[in-house]
């Protein structure tokens, strides 16, 4: 008994000490860093928010109080971000000291030597708790060529969101396949879904050109193309670097993508994620395809009419997958779809890879130190655990502890069931052995944001047929590959897949 009392007392004492230590860590850090960067101004570029820019702008004054550094957040339209950064760094202007951008662009920034190598800094930074960052982000998104160049601030996976109340009432299960998605969207399209007496939409997907459409189409195509695990790749053949588009699988994905447009708002081809999120959270759509943002936006009482009526699920899959030898769609079996669940091949798409902070290698040393500390501060659990629960931040969970500890989510307004459902969908994607990695070869922006995006926009507008779209993408991708060198591109592509 005495022993039990002793053990209990020791445990309580240890917990109290641990609690006090963790509570006092941030102020101590503040004391240690107070005035360290007095007079230092850091220009950080990211895209026009409010998402992503909001948490940076909100926390910049707190960081200034802690360290004295002024963080000046410069925002530009998303479609300009890649070029603005490159032109600033290439021309040697170097007015941008750091940026929060897509990790998939890293290859174009690292190769010419514009990004600071953060490997050693991170190794000496226990406050960052890098081991708590989920392995996908830590080992893939943050790294290039075995070195770490960025700090993840956001976790990105695309998922399907559905209205739990509507699906339950109509006797539908959450969509398991894209055929299910279409069936549900068709059922609810034209019905009043939010009680305002007006007909609403079965589906709502961001299909605007020069926005996020090319990620959406890849989310649909992934399950038809990749079935044997992440290493198989979903964009190019890993032996020949030929695009994986001129086949039945990609054509089927385009058919699905075009068909969802029938059940969306009339101007869906001109909507970006900001518009589709608003439609879904205002109760005007039964289904949506998006990153993790809808989950947290749906609990915001200021904008949401669907609080506690939103479910999330891993990207729907397919019972048929691509046979790469013949280019035909074949039924799933244990050999073709070793990761299938109930005969359905899911291929969750890590679209974008999560907004990450990188530092201009040419920035002055003190500025580099200040901005590293700022990114580290933003990423540390004390800040990020709160930010990922706020819809407007655009930050989605990426730390292991954020998936395990539901308290922050419940505190933010999510019910336990909703939190488990939301985090479960992300976890299922994150843990999938068949996860599809976003393209990270040189000039991936040209492959995706120009060739793929233009072809998809023309297809949705009815300018071209599916066959013409396929040919346009194949020819366009081939042209870039030949221009940049097939062998070089293949080498990088294979390396990014872990070959």
């Amino acid at each position, binding site marked *: 008994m005495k022993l039990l009392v002793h053990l209990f007392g020791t445990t309580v004492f240890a917990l109290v000490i641990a609690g006090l230590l963790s509570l006092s860590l941030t102020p101590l850090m503040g004391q240690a860093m107070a005035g360290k960067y007095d007079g230092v101004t850091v220009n950080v570029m990211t895209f026009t928010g409010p998402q992503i820019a909001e948490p940076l702008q909100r926390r910049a004054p707190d960081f200034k109080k802690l360290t004295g550094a002024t963080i000046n957040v410069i925002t530009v339209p998303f479609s300009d971000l890649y070029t603005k950064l490159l032109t600033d760094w290439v021309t040697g202007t170097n007015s941008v000291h750091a940026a929060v951008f897509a990790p998939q662009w890293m290859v174009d920034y690292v190769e010419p030597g514009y990004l600071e190598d953060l490997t050693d800094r991170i190794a000496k930074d226990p406050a960052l708790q890098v081991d708590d960052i989920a392995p996908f982000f830590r080992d893939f998104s943050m790294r290039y060529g075995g070195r770490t160049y960025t700090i993840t601030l956001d976790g990105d996976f695309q998922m399907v969101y559905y209205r739990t109340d509507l699906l339950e009432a109509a006797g539908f299960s959450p969509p398991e396949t894209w055929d299910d998605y279409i069936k549900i969207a068709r059922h609810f399209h034209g019905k009043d879904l939010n009680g305002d007496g007006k007909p609403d939409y079965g589906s709502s997907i961001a299909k605007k050109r020069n926005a996020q459409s090319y990620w959406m189409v890849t989310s649909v195509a992934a399950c038809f193309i990749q079935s044997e695990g992440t290493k198989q790749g979903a964009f190019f053949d890993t032996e020949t670097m030929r695009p994986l588009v001129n086949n039945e699988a990609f054509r089927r994905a385009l058919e699905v993508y075009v068909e969802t447009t029938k059940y969306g708002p009339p*101007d869906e081809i*001109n909507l970006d994620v900001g518009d589709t999120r608003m439609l879904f959270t205002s109760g005007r759509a039964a289904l949506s395809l998006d990153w993790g943002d809808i989950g947290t936006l749906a609990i915001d009482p200021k904008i949401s009419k669907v609080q506690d009526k939103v479910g999330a699920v891993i990207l729907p899959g397919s019972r048929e997958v691509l046979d790469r030898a013949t280019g035909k769609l074949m039924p799933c079996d244990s050999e073709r779809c070793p990761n299938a669940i109930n005969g359905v091949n899911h291929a969750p798409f890590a679209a974008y890879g999560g907004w990450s902070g990188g530092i201009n290698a040419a920035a002055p040393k003190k500025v580099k130190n200040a901005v590293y500390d700022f990114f580290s501060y933003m990423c540390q659990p004390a800040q990020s655990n709160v930010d990922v629960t706020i819809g407007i931040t655009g930050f989605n969970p990426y730390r292991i502890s954020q998936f395990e500890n539901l308290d922050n989510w419940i505190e933010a307004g999510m019910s336990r069931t909703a939190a488990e459902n939301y985090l479960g969908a992300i976890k299922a994607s994150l843990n999938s052995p068949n996860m599809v990695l976003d393209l990270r070869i040189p000039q991936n922006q040209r492959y995706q944001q120009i060739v793929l995006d233009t072809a998809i926009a*023309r297809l949705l507008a009815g*300018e071209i047929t599916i066959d013409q779209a396929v040919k346009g993408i194949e020819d366009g991708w081939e042209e870039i590959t030949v221009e940049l060198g097939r062998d070089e591109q293949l080498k990088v592509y294979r390396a990014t897949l872990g070959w």
Partner: protein
Amino acid sequence: MMQKRSATFSEWTDQRAPLVFILPAILIILLLAIFPLIISLYLSLSRFKFVKGGFSLKFIGWLNYEKLLVGSQQFHFIGSFGQLTPMEMAAIALVGLLLLWWLIRYFRQGPVTVPGLLGRLILTAGLLSLTWLVLFVLNQKGFPGTLVVTLFYVFFGVLIQFCIGLALALLCAQRIPARNFFRLVFFLPLMVTPVGIAYTFRMLVDTTKGPFAPIWEFFGWGAIAWVKDPWAARWVIVLGDSWQWTPFMFIVLLAALENQPRDQVEAAIVDGASRWQIFRDITWRAILPVSITVILIRIIEAFKIIDLPNVLTNGGPGIASESLTLHSFMAWRSLDLGGSAAVAYMLLFVSVFFSMSFINFARHRLKTA
């Protein structure tokens, strides 16, 4: 001796004074306009690439132009070709015959000069190719690229702006109440930034959320999105562009109208001429030089349209409303600097061709007026 030397020095400075005074202007123009033009020409013949420590420019000859005219970007720049119907073939033949007649008339009327003949041959070839191109890409199975779409913006935009601008100027030239107030109100859109106009029109024409949404819904058009229809999207852009630039036409034409010879007008009224006769024989002739100038300025400006298609439609649906400048900008944004410069040079050729043709046409009209 001293006087002679002084006179020589004075003559020397007099001779060189024009050069000294004009040199700074020449240098500035060379620096700001000519050198960038030459560099961008080289850029259009090169491929831009990032390399360790910076970037490289590799000379690739005409490849960027080849891509636009016959290669992978042909659909984007020129468009997708359909199949000509007999009617369309007849239309091309008719245009060809008209141009031939025009050339024959030139030979008959004389005098035939080398520059005159060369200019006419270039114009004939240009207009015939354009007719062929427009009919090829605008028929049922074809689809216009950014070149034809830009020509659509230029032709219809400038036409609408001139007609409405002239009508408003004629109204405000009358002695009507609150004349100054109307002049100010009609002039206001010119002072608004194009991006602001684009956003305003985007809201105005939104059939689901815009201020006129109840009206669209009343007529049963609530579920119709103009952004999905290529021609609707292009016309909305022409509408926004006209709203912005009509005041420019209006204010210049108003000034021209107010400077027309009053004594001729009064004499015509005394002689019992109708309003139409006064407009045709006195007013139109008086404002013709100004009209030609203002149309020329607008043609050159309209070729460079980018703000409205970028903000209003993002060039969509698909690439249906993309202008040449937006095409060039999008290529630049993806760091295809060579491709972007090639589009910009094609735009330069086209706008120079149309501007020169218009100037020659206008000069002829002015001579005969």
